[in-house]
């Protein structure tokens, strides 16, 4: 060991003396740092490899620190398959759903550590996409690691991953494509991945079916050798089962795609000698899953199931199932599953039921298969699950098939000369009287299925007479049953007989009268109903009595309708009787049995109620209760109940008020909130408007500045520019005009001045003129004076001159 250690030291370098070795967390930290920051691919690759090596022993440290670094590698180092492969493997180890060996004793590691890390990883759905993208990588290690990592993640967080993958286009399709990978390891791992992926998600199941997966699965199954093949066949069938279970759309697709026939080779039996050698464990598993697939097809209650049942019969699968049933060496578990599959396949399908009636076992003399099955059911030594399966098969065989019900009852009626042949009716009668309480139970329930909803057979069965066990006189079956009821030591037998008699009496007054008339069944039932030790028994007894009361035709003087009621009221009290009767549906066995037609009982001592009886009870309960109440003295009889109901009503009323108040409060809140919202909306829109306005202004400003460059092409801006130009143009004109006006004004002013001068001149001129005129007048006067002077001067001197 020391030698080894020193060897490692020489490789890694010895730790410096005096310093402790780095803790795992520190080592991881350093490696993460290198993965994140190193520029050398080789470095990152080596660090990833080292992280992978550490991730098993130090899962928490690696997971806590390296997640982001690894994610980064997946994103950026896609080109290097080796690095990617190491990163994927590290993530795989971190998220592994199971604890590693080293972790098992370490209590610091929580058992859901893988789930926690998965949750962290998928917080960003993009991370899942990264892994999905790596499925495209053809490299073997990368693809395989990616598939396995996805499987782990799906195991840990099924619903989350399913939802993420569902919204990725082609997410599902990509995975299905890998089924075609020629490398079987990849294909097989993909199968496991798809099984996880399809669990409980109908949408994914449908997409997977749509992508021709049924074809691929059947091809793989064929290549692996059908039922004789290995675990891969089982995986294929498990995936098929996932796709079909509770998915009526896929079931319909399976039927329409004619895939039903392709199940046949899986159910093929070998010749007897080979079968005697026994079944290999894997073959048991393969066939069991195949049978579950068949049941997923035909087991539905919906309208589609009928079509599937017909396809199963037409495709020969029903015949193949019967073949398995009758071949030798079939393990008991497979046999039980086959019987259940046959049961589901024939239920409510008359042709298939009739087919089953005709199948014979290869015994000597040949007996009907059903007879062999019934023998098995009534045989104490057979495995209990097998017996339960046969009962279910018998129930389905008789379900809604009046002719088969009639045929069964006929085997009990006395016929001429065929006493030697063993019949189903004889077997069942034998079962009723058997010492095995489970056989009593099975026989009584089986017989009750022959009477279900069939008044005709109820009447016919009344004619059956059985020789008493002690060798006494033969007695009718119905009174024998009454007697058995009193004698039976086991509660299971009593429960079963009460169920049988209830079925018998319901809707058949003749049977009710026969029960009332003899055997002491009524007295026993009354005392049983009065007794509260076993609530189930007292409830069933009360139910039977109520049926006898309801279907009483007063033909038995001892127990007329009124007399029976008096007995009940006196011995039990009407109120107690009603509460016993109505308590049945609240009992645990009732809720267990009413879930599904197939009896699911783990142990023989747990046998209790039967599914069809629960239906009968449900159909009759309210009818019987109202019948009892209506004819009794109404309210006075049960003041307690009345008070109870009143209290209940009061309670509910109070609650109602409370809720209404709450509602009002909430409505009010809502209104105020609405108002606030409206206000804010108004403010918002106002602000928006302002914003738009401002934006417009800004853009206008921008347009103006941009206009000279002429680079904007926007319409408005163009228009604006046009307008701007026009304005400028008009401005210019305006300026022109203004200057003109100015000019004109000055011109005007000069003109005016000119005029004023002219006027002044005119005035002066006029004055001058006046002056001149005055002068002229003066001179005229002078002239005249001179003239006179001249004349006077001339007259004196010159008369001689004329």
């Amino acid at each position, binding site marked *: 060991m020391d030698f080894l250690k020193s060897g490692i030291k020489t490789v890694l370098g010895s730790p410096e003396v005096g310093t402790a070795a780095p803790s795992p967390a520190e080592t991881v930290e350093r490696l993460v740092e290198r993965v994140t920051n190193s520029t050398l691919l080789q470095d990152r690759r080596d660090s990833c490899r080292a992280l992978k090596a550490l991730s098993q022993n130090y899962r928490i440290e690696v997971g806590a620190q390296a997640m982001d670094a690894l994610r980064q590698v997946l994103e950026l180092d896609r080109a290097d398959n080796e690095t990617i492969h190491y990163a994927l493997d590290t993530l795989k180890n971190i998220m592994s759903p199971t604890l590693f060996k080293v972790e098992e004793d370490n209590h610091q590691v929580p058992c859901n550590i893988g789930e926690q890390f998965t949750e962290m990883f998928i917080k960003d759905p993009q991370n899942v996409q990264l892994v999905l993208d790596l499925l495209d990588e053809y490299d073997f290690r990368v693809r395989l690691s990616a598939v396995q990592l996805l499987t782990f993640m799906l195991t840990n967080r099924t619903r989350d991953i399913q939802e993420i993958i*569902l919204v990725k286009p082609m997410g599902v399709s990509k995975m299905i494509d890998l089924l075609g990978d020629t490398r079987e390891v990849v294909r097989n791992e993909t199968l496991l991945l798809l099984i996880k992926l399809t669990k409980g998600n109908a949408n994914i199941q449908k997409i997977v079916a749509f992508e021709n997966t049924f074809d691929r699965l059947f*091809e793989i199954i*064929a290549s692996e050798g059908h039922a004789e093949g290995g675990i891969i066949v089982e995986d294929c069938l498990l995936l098929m089962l996932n796709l079909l279970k509770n998915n009526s759309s896929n079931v319909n697709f399976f039927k329409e795609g004619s895939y039903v026939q392709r199940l046949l080779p899986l159910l093929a039996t070998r010749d007897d000698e080979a079968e005697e050698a026994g079944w290999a464990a894997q073959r048991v598993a393969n066939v069991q899953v195949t049978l579950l697939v068949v049941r997923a097809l035909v087991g539905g209650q919906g309208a589609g199931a009928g079509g599937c049942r017909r396809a199963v019969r037409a495709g020969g699968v029903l015949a193949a199932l019967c073949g398995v049933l009758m071949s030798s060496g079939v393990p008991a578990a497979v046999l039980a599953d086959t019987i259940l599959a046959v049961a589901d396949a024939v239920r409510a399908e008359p042709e298939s039921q009739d087919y089953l009636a005709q199948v014979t076992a290869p015994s000597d003399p040949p007996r009907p298969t059903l007879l062999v099955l019934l023998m098995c059911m009534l045989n104490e030594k057979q495995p209990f699950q097998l017996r339960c399966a046969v009962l279910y098969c018998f129930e389905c065989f008789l379900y809604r098939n009046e002719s088969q019900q009639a045929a069964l009852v006929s085997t009990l009626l006395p016929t001429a000369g065929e006493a030697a042949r063993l019949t189903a009716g004889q077997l069942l009668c034998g079962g009723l009287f058997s010492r095995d309480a489970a056989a009593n139970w099975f026989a009584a329930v089986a017989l009750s299925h022959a009477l279900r909803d069939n008044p005709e057979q109820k009447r016919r069965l009344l004619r059956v007479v059985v020789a008493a066990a002690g060798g006494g006189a033969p007695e009718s079956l119905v009174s024998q049953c009454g007697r058995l009821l009193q004698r039976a030591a086991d509660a299971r037998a009593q429960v079963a007989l009460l169920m049988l008699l209830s079925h018998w009496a319901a809707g058949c007054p003749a049977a009710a009268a026969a029960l009332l008339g003899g055997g002491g069944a009524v007295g026993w039932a009354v005392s049983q109903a009065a007794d509260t030790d076993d609530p189930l028994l007292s409830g069933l007894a009360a139910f039977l009595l109520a049926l006898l009361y309801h279907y009483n035709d007063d033909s038995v003087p001892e127990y007329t309708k009124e007399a029976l009621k008096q007995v009940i009221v006196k011995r039990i009290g009407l109120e107690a009787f009603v509460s016993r009767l109505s308590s049945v549906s609240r009992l645990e066995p009732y809720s267990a049995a009413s879930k599904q037609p197939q009896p699911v009982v783990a142990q023989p001592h747990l046998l209790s109620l039967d599914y069809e009886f629960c239906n009968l009870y449900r159909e009759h309960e309210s009818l019987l209760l109202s019948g009892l109440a209506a004819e009794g003295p109404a309210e006075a009889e049960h003041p307690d109940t009345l008070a109870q109901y009143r209290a209940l009503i009061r309670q509910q009323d109070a609650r109602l008020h409370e809720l209404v108040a709450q509602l009002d409060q909430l409505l009010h809140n809502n209104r105020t909130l609405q108002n606030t919202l409206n206000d804010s909306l108004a403010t918002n829109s106002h602000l928006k408007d302002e914003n738009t306005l401002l934006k417009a202004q800004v853009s206008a400003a921008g347009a103006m500045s941009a206009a000279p460059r002429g680079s904007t092409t926007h319409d408005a801006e163009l228009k604006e520019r046009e307008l701007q130009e026009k304005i400028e143009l008009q401005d210019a004109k305006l300026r022109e005009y203004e200057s003109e006006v100015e000019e004109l004004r000055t011109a005007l002013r000069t003109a005016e001045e000119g005029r004023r001068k002219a006027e002044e001149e005119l005035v002066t001129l006029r004055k001058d003129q006046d002056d001149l005129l005055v002068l002229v007048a003066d001179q005229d006067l002078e002239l005249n004076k001179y003239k006179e002077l001249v004349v006077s001067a001339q007259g004196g001197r010159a008369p001689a001159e004329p």
Partner: protein
Amino acid sequence: MAYAYLFKYIIIGDTGVGKSCLLLQFTDKRFRPVHDLTIGVEFGARMITIDGKQIKLQIWDTGGQEAFRSITRSYYRGAAGALLVYDITRRETFNHLTTWLEDARQHSNSNMVIMLIGNKSDLESRREVKKEEGEAFAREHGLVFMETSAKTAANVEEAFINTAKEIYEKIQEGVFDINNEANGIKIGPQHSTGAGAGGAGGAGAGGASSGGCC
């Protein structure tokens, strides 16, 4: 049950345009006035005859609600035909066709035959989309067009069958690669044995598998 070819269809379009009713009318020949919302995708099937050949139609009816879009997208790749449906009494279902078509073209194989269907043609009085508009849209995008009524069954058969005829013609022309099942076409068991005699190299794998199952 033997068929020559199997075609896969999808039906797409807005919610409430009558996709599920079209399918029900085609497969069951009945009409249900009140139909539950289709959750995710539902399946239906029927056999038809074209050119004397039995053809099986497998039809996936998708939920039209927005919530199912991502689920629906997974079905485009494997489908040979698509019925794109709108409601002639609701204009907005017509307006959304472009989005549907983009989605379909993006996720499907390029040869997928798309039939445009204006449904509810019986409600003439409430019509909001004219027939000519549907025709114009189909012409513009290279689709086949029809108006149907899932209620009266008018043109419903034709819509499904004409789509199949179109696909069949494409097969005859060799446009579709019928050996690639991802295209939404499968050769039937009876047909593939016949083709095996023809001896195309690609039929080898198909022949082997059919030998195993039949």
